[in-house]
């Protein structure tokens, strides 16, 4: 059973989500689902089968000609079957076939045709199927009249039969030739129609191939990019080796939150809550935005229901997770936020992100998320967070980190610094690499919240597009990665 949506708003949200993920016209089209292939094979089968099963074709199936019906070039059995199909619309029953074959030598083909034509069954069938037969009136009229007059008529039929028989014999070779030539014509029509259909189909296929060729070229560029990245990976492995060698000699560095020097942390926390309240969007806006991630939740569901939200704030995301059937735990350093979430009935701990992750068992989480926390962390903490998250995620589980998008120049140079606890903007490129480096699969960047249409510079010339792209483009992006099942574990 295909899915349906009980809630029409949910349906609309999914459609909009899918629409957003469609490529722009004329750009890389790789995510567009391939158009299903049609007919091709079926037509070839039809062409193969045409000779055997379709019987004797007619030039015009709705107007069989008398010569075509007589089919003088065919044997008696083939002739009777042909009549049944064309005039009664069915295959002959064994009894009927035997009867016709017995009478045929005596009455001849012309008379047989006329006799079948005046039957009620044939008349009904022809009327229904809109078939008209041209038969010499000189034949049909006497047969019809005499059949009605009972026994006396039957006797009078004998001379009619005789004339028919003689006519058939006299013209046999001519009738045979005509039947054959008409059939050739019919076959030609048939082939022409089939050819046209096949060519139309091939034309459509070629159009699609063109489209796929374009995609292939895109794929070739991707391969080139992968080659370039390979070099970076090699160098990373060397760095890793040296780092490992150093840890053998030195005690591990203690990492933790930095104690504030002059102001008590509680005061800063209170300031921050006030700041967030002043700057945050409406409940409905936040909710609508978080629903963008329903696709990721659908994907993560196969990895279980455990979820960890780092920096859970007021718990908007926790609430959506619960609605979607997950069992989330929130983590936040701000005690005011933690209390708020607990009051709302969510599991929530006052803890820093990395140590919360360290406590999570291997392969235990379906979703690990951090909305607008990555830009608050020193790089070594961010690095540890991504590394620990990878360990804690179950295969198929998803990591989502959302952060301001400095591709928008106003974000990178201005709005990012509204928040005094922000460190430095993170770029989609560096975050993609960071996740790839840690072994996440299917790493993708999703961009959100462009400036509204009315804030953009009007116009569609290249300069305006560029200005709008740099100044009014998406203000946030999310980096998303999936834990790929370890092959050795799979084997075990």
């Amino acid at each position, binding site marked *: 059973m295909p899915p349906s949506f*009980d809630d029409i708003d949910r*349906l609309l949200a999914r459609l909009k989500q899918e629409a957003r993920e469609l490529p722009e016209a004329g750009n890389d089209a790789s995510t567009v689902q391939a158009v*299903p292939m*049609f007919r091709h094979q079926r037509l070839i089968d039809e062409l193969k089968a045409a000779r055997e099963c379709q019987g004797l074709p007619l030039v015009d199936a709705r107007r069989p000609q008398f010569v075509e019906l007589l089919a003088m070039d065919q044997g008696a059995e083939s002739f009777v079957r042909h009549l049944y199909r064309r005039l009664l619309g069915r295959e002959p029953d064994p009894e009927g076939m035997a009867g016709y074959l017995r009478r045929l030598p005596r009455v001849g083909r012309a008379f047989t045709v006329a006799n079948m034509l005046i039957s009620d069954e044939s008349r009904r069938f022809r009327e229904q199927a809109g078939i008209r037969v041209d038969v010499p009136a000189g034949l049909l009229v006497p047969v019809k009249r005499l059949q009605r007059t009972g026994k006396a008529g039957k006797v009078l039929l004998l001379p009619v039969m005789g004339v028919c028989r003689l006519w058939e014999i006299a013209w046999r070779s001519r009738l045979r030739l005509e039947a054959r030539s008409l059939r050739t014509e019919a076959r030609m029509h048939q082939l022409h129609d089939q050819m046209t259909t096949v060519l139309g189909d091939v*034309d459509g296929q070629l159009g699609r191939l063109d489209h796929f060729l374009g995609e292939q070229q895109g794929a070739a560029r991707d391969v080139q990019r992968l080659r370039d990245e390979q070099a970076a990976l090699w160098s990373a492995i060397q760095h890793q080796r040296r780092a490992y060698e150093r840890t053998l000699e030195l005690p591990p560095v203690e990492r933790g939150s930095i104690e504030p020097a002059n102001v008590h942390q509680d005061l800063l926390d209170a300031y921050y809550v006030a700041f967030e309240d002043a700057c945050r969007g409406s409940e409905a806006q936040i909710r609508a935005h978080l629903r963008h991630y329903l696709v990721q939740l659908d994907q993560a569901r196969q990895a279980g229901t455990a979820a960890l939200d780092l920096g859970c704030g007021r718990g908007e995301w926790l609430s959506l997770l619960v609605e979607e059937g997950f069992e989330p735990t929130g983590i936040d350093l701000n005690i005011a936020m933690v209390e708020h979430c607990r009051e709302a009935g969510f599991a929530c701990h006052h803890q820093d992100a990395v140590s919360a992750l360290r406590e999570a068992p291997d392969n235990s989480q379906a979703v690990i998320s951090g909305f607008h926390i990555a830009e608050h962390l020193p790089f070594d903490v961010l690095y540890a967070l991504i590394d620990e998250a990878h360990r804690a995620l179950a295969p198929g589980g998803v990591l989502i980190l959302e952060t301001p998008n400095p591709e928008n120049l106003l974000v990178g140079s201005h709005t990012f610094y509204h928040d005094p606890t922000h460190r430095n903007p993170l770029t989609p490129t560096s975050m993609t690499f960071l996740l790839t480096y840690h072994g996440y699969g299917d790493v993708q960047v999703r961009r959100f919240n462009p400036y509204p249409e009315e804030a953009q510079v009007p116009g569609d010339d290249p300069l305006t597009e560029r200005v709008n792209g740099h100044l009014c483009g998406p203000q946030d992006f999310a980096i998303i990665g999936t834990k790929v099942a370890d092959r050795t574990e799979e084997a075990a």
Partner: protein
Amino acid sequence: MKILVTANHVPFLHGGADHHIHGLVAALREHGHDTELLRLPFRFQPEADVERLMSYCETLDMTRPNGQAVDRLISLQFPGYGIHHPAHTVWVMHQHRAVYELFDDHQATPALRQLRQAVIDYDNRHLGRVSQLFANSARVAERLASHNGLAATPLYHPPHGAERLYHAEDWGYVFYPSRLEGLKRQDLLIEAARHLRSPAKILIAGDGGQRARYEAIIERHDLKDRVTLTGQISEAQKLACYAHALAVFFGPFDEDYGYITLEAMLAAKPVITCTDSGGPLEFVRHDETGWVVEPSPEAVAEAIDAAWANRRLAAEMGQAGREAYQAHGIGWDSVVARLLGQEKA
């Protein structure tokens, strides 16, 4: 060859006509023809303006303007087809509708009456003598035959972005993207929701003058859980909505051509249309590629329920629709070949 295309320009009123005009020019250029577009400023009112433009066109000879030999003139609209050229192909998008199918004898002003006679004479005079006469659809050809006794060959063209339409699993809703106008009859579909036995949903996209009225119908019958007016949607959203639809509804009154039928067929979706819908009837075969039903909410609801009851069959009908589209051979390549007389019908 050097080709001049003529069409009208109605400032700031854009729609399907623009797609048609620019599509043709782009296709001709793609086939290597040196093509230019000549657009005539057009005002529907006052009637004297229309007559002035008609007489102006009749004085124009585009055989060799300023010594530049033009090999072919292709005209798409009234009154451009009055311009003179020995190799003049006309592909009638539609005639001047105000004096034909939209003319109302009881309400017509004397000026409109006078214009009507002038336009009919003009059409008979010029369309009768062009080298080739095509119509945008069989419906337009029919009107040319009945109003002017002219024989035009229907010539179909593909909808905008035909190659981007795709097919995906159905999500159990009926989709109808169109301007919210009386002639488009979205109310048939909205009212059908009252008679549905299945839980199918209805998505109506687009904006227009009837929006308030349609919203009121939804409100009155408390249908907001079943029917949504999405308003204007983006191109990408339209593609996604087609892709996941159970079926597409397109039941306007006497449409000329109608891209929606073709778009639905390209997305391999069955089409529900009405016996008096005009254009769509050229493409939709009842029980093969969709449903052709009486224009009543009950009949439309029955078709939607039928689609819901057998979703696999509905999907097969959609595929058959896609095949039917291919069998029609609709594409800009064949349009160019036919217009330039390089291919027999």
